[in-house]
């Protein structure tokens, strides 16, 4: 008889690589992942070899070999930036089934450094064009029917969703810009955020709606400051079964609900440009948790672009349909705001985004609910919220797959 896996496991530690952001000396994906792994084990008070299950996008087996782990569960589910939320869902199921007690979910991604690697050293930005030249499966719909039309980075395609949202709901570029402005306010409380200040980045520090609108056009209606960063980041979280959670010194943050869903892979197949699978993955996570959007005191939502976070807010029931940006209006979602806090690390927009941002959502969710979200660097305070519950939504691909978690603190 299957049982509800709700609260069968908790996150008990979260950590990052030694350096994040724009690394002066390039590091590889593996180097960043291993740094994060060592740091999370130190924080958790366990040895690497105590880990029984390993979840990573690139690649769980390689990480296990490098570290000499002897995992009984190896999972390389790789469906974009939401993969880590989905890993947590899978780990929860495995733990609930009694397959293992201690798992790591980790990622290292040299989103910035890889530009400085010798060609062939890692997957690079030219890969998509090589596919067009025929170095790929002739059945791939993107190769045949999408990439030949000047599709570069992610903004090329995401911009189409924002246009459609503006058309269907009358939302404006100003509405979306507010998301970037409020998210920046959080980054200004996080010394590890790339956009923390003018000293950390020429575009850093306080911004206004007008600044967003005046920033260079990337893919109308997306301006530069509507778009996430591309940085280096390594991150890891440790999950423990309810049975062994007391062995860890970190405060447990319980996984009350977990859901995954997809609606397409190629954007050719998106059924509706203003709906994402977060609606389904969110409903699944809420149902498992026995909670709903009204119970959430914190939201961590994937902000690859301002429009991504706004649509996700609608899908998770945090706003009405078509009014996603209203969550951020007048800085409501910002520090000291009147609404629920959103993306308290400064988001992919202003903190860090290595390409698959979902790991950063998990780390911030853990730190907020465990009460350790103040960085304490340079005496900066104010990032820690009073939230005891959080909804965490990762999005992957081009508004394609999503993973949603409902987390709570005791």
């Amino acid at each position, binding site marked *: 008889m299957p049982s509800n896996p709700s609260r069968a496991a908790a996150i008990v530690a979260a950590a990052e690589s030694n350096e994040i952001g724009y690394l002066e000396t390039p590091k590889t994906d593996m180097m960043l992942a291993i740094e994060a792994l060592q740091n999370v084990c130190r924080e958790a008070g366990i040895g690497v070899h105590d880990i029984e299950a390993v979840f990573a996008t690139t690649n769980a087996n390689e990480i296990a070999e490098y570290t000499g782990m002897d995992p009984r569960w190896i999972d390389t589910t790789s469906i974009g930036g939401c993969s880590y939320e989905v890993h947590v869902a899978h780990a929860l199921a495995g733990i609930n089934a009694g397959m293992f007690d201690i798992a790591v979910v980790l990622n290292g991604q040299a989103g910035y450094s890889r530009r400085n690697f010798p060609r062939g050293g890692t997957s690079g930005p030219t890969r998509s064009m090589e596919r067009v030249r025929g170095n790929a499966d002739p059945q791939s719909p993107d190769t*045949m029917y999408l990439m*030949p*039309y*000047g599709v570069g980075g992610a903004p090329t395609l995401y911009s*189409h969703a924002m*246009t459609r949202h503006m058309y269907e709901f009358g939302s404006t570029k100003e509405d979306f810009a507010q998301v970037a402005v409020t998210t920046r306010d959080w980054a200004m409380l996080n010394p590890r955020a790339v956009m923390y200040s003018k000293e950390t980045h020429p575009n850093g520090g306080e911004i206004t709606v007008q600044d967003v609108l005046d920033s260079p056009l990337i893919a109308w209606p997306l301006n530069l400051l509507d778009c996430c960063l591309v940085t280096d980041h390594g991150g890891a979280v440790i999950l423990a079964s309810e049975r062994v959670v007391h062995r860890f010194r970190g405060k447990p943050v319980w996984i009350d609900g977990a859901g995954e869903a997809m609606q397409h892979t190629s954007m050719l197949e998106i059924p509706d440009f203003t709906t994402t699978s977060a609606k389904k993955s969110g409903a699944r996570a809420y149902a498992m948790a026995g909670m709903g959007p009204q119970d959430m005191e914190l939201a961590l939502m994937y902000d690859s672009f301002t429009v991504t976070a706004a649509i996700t807010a609608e899908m998770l029931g945090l706003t009405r349909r078509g009014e996603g940006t209203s969550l951020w209006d007048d800085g409501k979602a910002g520090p000291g705001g009147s609404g629920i806090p959103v993306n308290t690390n400064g988001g992919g927009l202003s903190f860090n985004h290595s390409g698959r941002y979902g790991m950063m959502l998990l780390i911030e969710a853990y730190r907020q609910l465990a009460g350790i979200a103040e960085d304490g660097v340079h005496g900066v305070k104010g990032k820690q919220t009073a939230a005891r519950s959080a909804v965490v939504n990762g999005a992957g691909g081009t508004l394609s797959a999503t993973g949603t978690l409902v987390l709570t603190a005791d």
Partner: protein
Amino acid sequence: MAEYDKPAPFPDPFVGKPYWDGGKEGKLMLPRCTSCSKTHFYPRSMCPHCGRDTIEWFEASGYGFLHTFAVQHRGVGAWTKEVPYVTAFIDLMEGDRVFTVLRGVDPLKPEEIRIGAKCRIEWDQAGEDTFMPYWRVVEE
């Protein structure tokens, strides 16, 4: 004629062959399911709507409607020299949707581009045996 200098795929010699072959004659060929009567795109060996493998090809009208668009200011590869250019998803008259670079619109006036505008397909010769489809707004 001017040489085609943009990326073009090697046309799918398998499932999508009728689509690419149609382009050589300026026709839009689409796959349709004889069980559920629905058209799908991209071409597949089975119907994504009902899961059956009863696929036939037919000549479509070559008309569609603008579903959504964006104006690319960065570009990539050979497209970089064309910025700004308008990319778009077109709802096919017969069902489902395609992606294209849209013609017949002003990239510098995105506010004037009308979602729902009627569009027509046109094929550019991109190689000895390859034709690339583009769509153009044809409505006044």
